[in-house]
């Protein structure tokens, strides 16, 4: 695809470079300086640690890099950073990408295959990037009789709802995108959106296979939402609050899964059904209805739907960790003592005389790093267990699915609630309990 230059002359090259330099200088001067002036008139300087950060400080920091650290630290506490990078979209998307790759590789090894192999030097690591590029470059085809506004809105809404779900999960002490007082209730509300979006995108495609798939997805999601919510009521009773951060803090000594194993199992099965993973992947049953409600999506719309699905996977796994496995609590593994002191106080070369340190560290508090590491470990473990049934089980039939959702799981969820009530009223655990 590259065109070999017919002739190469040094003078042409130098001319090209000087042309570019000239135009850059002109544009920066004519447009950039007025833009900076306007920005400086209307925007206040940030105040960090009691000092006003005016442009002179910024230039100064550019030459002494360690003085940028308070600025960076302040930036990490802002909402923008939390939404975009950590613990919001960027973090979740990274974990989602890792999940897709691990799923394909793990499934392949389970099935005596190799999986992605050629992209990237090491066992096909760059396969996802290749897939992403391919999806971006494909044409987006809309069926002629489809309902266009709804059809376009479907995948965007799906990804947006999944992102909203991700926003509610606390990752580390102080790091949660949306600190809502009734976090769990907000989670239920957001989960309730997914069937609506599925049926909207299935209906608007105006074709038989998406329609059948959408109806099946509706049956499945609705019938498993009730046991999902019921199984978590036990936790709410035991902690006495709906706030996710408080639920995690209440598990400082023991995770709730020890007392609520039935609730954990019911919740796990409902997760598999909500995510449409095998054995509950009826809405996308490939040997019966091609691809279900995703049939008509092509190109980046399909990419958005996949992104939404895997964000949902991460969010559900993170929710499981937060509610049942103790969130970010765990023994202190990092940073260990000598390193911790070095980070905060610097290396003491000669006592009282010479200390080598970087002012402004630590960027994060120690608890936050430890908490994040434990959270990631637990989430990854739960994701593994969610991915595993795909290689082991066949697809379940629809009447068995509804039977499980409406009879067995609701009964088990109620049993779980009675256990929780028993524990609270006997005063063992819960608000005002012995433990």
């Amino acid at each position: 695809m590259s065109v070999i230059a017919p002739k190469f002359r040094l003078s042409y090259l130098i001319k090209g470079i000087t042309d570019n330099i000239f135009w850059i200088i002109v544009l920066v001067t004519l447009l950039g300086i007025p833009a900076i002036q306007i920005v400086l008139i209307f925007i206040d300087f940030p105040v960090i640690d009691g000092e006003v950060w005016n442009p002179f400080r910024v230039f100064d920091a550019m030459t002494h890099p360690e003085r940028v650290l308070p600025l960076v630290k302040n930036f990490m506490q802002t909402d923008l950073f939390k939404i975009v990078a950590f613990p919001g979209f960027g973090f979740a998307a990274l974990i989602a990408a890792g999940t897709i790759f691990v799923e394909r590789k793990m499934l392949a090894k389970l099935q005596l295959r190799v999986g992605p192999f050629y992209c990237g030097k090491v066992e096909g690591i760059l396969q996802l990037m290749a897939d992403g590029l391919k999806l971006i470059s494909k044409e987006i085809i809309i069926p002629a009789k489809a309902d266009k506004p709804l059809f376009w809105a479907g995948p965007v809404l799906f990804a947006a709802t999944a992102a909203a779900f991700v926003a509610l999960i606390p990752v580390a002490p102080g790091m949660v995108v949306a600190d809502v007082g009734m976090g769990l209730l907000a989670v239920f509300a957001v989960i309730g959106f997914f069937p609506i979006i599925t049926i909207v995108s299935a209906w608007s495609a105006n074709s038989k296979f998406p329609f059948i798939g959408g109806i099946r997805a509706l049956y499945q999601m609705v019938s498993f939402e009730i046991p999902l919510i019921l199984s978590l009521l036990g936790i709410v009773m035991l902690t006495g609050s709906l706030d996710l951060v408080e639920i995690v803090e209440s598990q400082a000594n023991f995770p709730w899964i020890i007392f609520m194993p039935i609730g954990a199992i019911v919740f796990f099965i409902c997760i598999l059904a909500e995510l449409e993973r095998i054995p509950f992947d009826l809405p996308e049953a490939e040997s019966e209805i091609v691809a279900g409600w995703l049939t008509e999506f092509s190109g980046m719309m399909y990419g958005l739907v996949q992104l939404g699905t895997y964000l949902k996977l991460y969010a559900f796994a993170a929710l499981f960790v937060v509610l049942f496995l103790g969130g970010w609590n765990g023994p202190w593994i990092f940073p260990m003592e000598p390193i911790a002191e070095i980070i905060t106080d610097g290396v003491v070369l000669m006592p009282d005389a010479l200390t080598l340190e970087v002012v402004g560290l630590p960027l994060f508090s120690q608890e936050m790093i430890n908490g994040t590491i434990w959270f990631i470990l637990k989430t990854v473990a739960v994701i593994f267990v969610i991915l595993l049934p795909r290689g082991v089980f066949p697809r379940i039939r629809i009447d068995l699915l509804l039977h499980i959702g409406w009879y067995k799981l609701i009964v088990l969820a109620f049993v779980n609630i009675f256990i929780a009530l028993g524990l609270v009223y006997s005063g063992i655990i819960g608000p005002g309990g012995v433990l």
Partner: protein
Amino acid sequence: MSKQLLPGLAIEKVDDRIMTLNIGPQHPGSGHMRIIVKVDGDYIVHCDPDPGYVHRGEEKMAEYRNYITNIPHLERPVIHDSCNILYPYCLGVEELLGLEVPERAKYLRVIAAELNRCVYIEYWLAIYGIFLGHSTMFMWPVGDRELLIDLLEKMTGARVTHAYFVPGGIRNDVPPNFEDVCLRQINYFEKRLKEYAAVFYDNPILISRTKDTGVLSREDAIKLGTTGSVLRASGVDFDIRKKEPYDVYEELDFQTNVLKEGDSYARSKIPWLDMFESCRIIRDALQKMPKSGSVRVKLKPKPKGGDTEVYRRVESGRGSLGFHIVSDGKPQPYRIKISVPSFRNLIAMPHLLTGEKLGNMPAVYWSLNYWPVEADR
């Protein structure tokens, strides 16, 4: 319900409640045939199988070819199981021409036939897995099948459609170290077979989907004339290798597997149990085989049969396959009729599917060990 206008066209009155579905040839869950089902809600009220999409006129074309040139032609109905479909043809022509097959050829024929049986059953199991949505059960049998296809390639030179059997023996002898390689691969294959139990046959979701669905009682199985694994899953102990032994099956030590329930689970389990028996047969045959000898009877060019007819049958991967050869003294056969087990089991399909749930259809239909290409010939 329908008025016959021309042969093949009919007018039907449309009913409000009943929906006619074409589980057609272009469907990921149907194979190369069409099943016209009428459903009332989720229950099938009428089922009409419509094979014939792969009908090539094998029997008619066989009348134009000599007895020897018919061999690559007649093995095409089932390309994996080609040795088993040529077996009764070769036995029949040997009876017509009065040929005596050498001992070593008989043992090698038995080994090739059993390998073919395993190859076919693995492929059938793989498709059964994928119809139920179990991708691991698709990958494992197809992967293990490669071991056997490798052996067949060493034996015959081709992976499928071997054209290995000729009237009077087999086409060529096996390479020198074939016995050791075969024994090693069969031992590993048997170990792999045992792992299917954990992932497939003891899988609770599979059991809940296939147990007690599509139950074929013993009387119905006999009356409808079903054969092969369908018959043995309903409690009838009939295997032609035991009842009417051909070649050296009398001297080999194996048993037939019979289950009594007659549901889809039993029908899916019998072929897997049969594969263990095939491994036993192959090991036994390798041991008892004469170490050297000719493998083929020299034939005159364009052999002519007498003025008689023969009917020979053989137990193939799907059931009893019969050849009715009528000859009138010319080098071409007068009439060849292939009685394929898939076609004989086809009659069980409307019998079982009527009254069944639509969601059970793939589990029941494919468990009948139905190979569409063979049924159409």
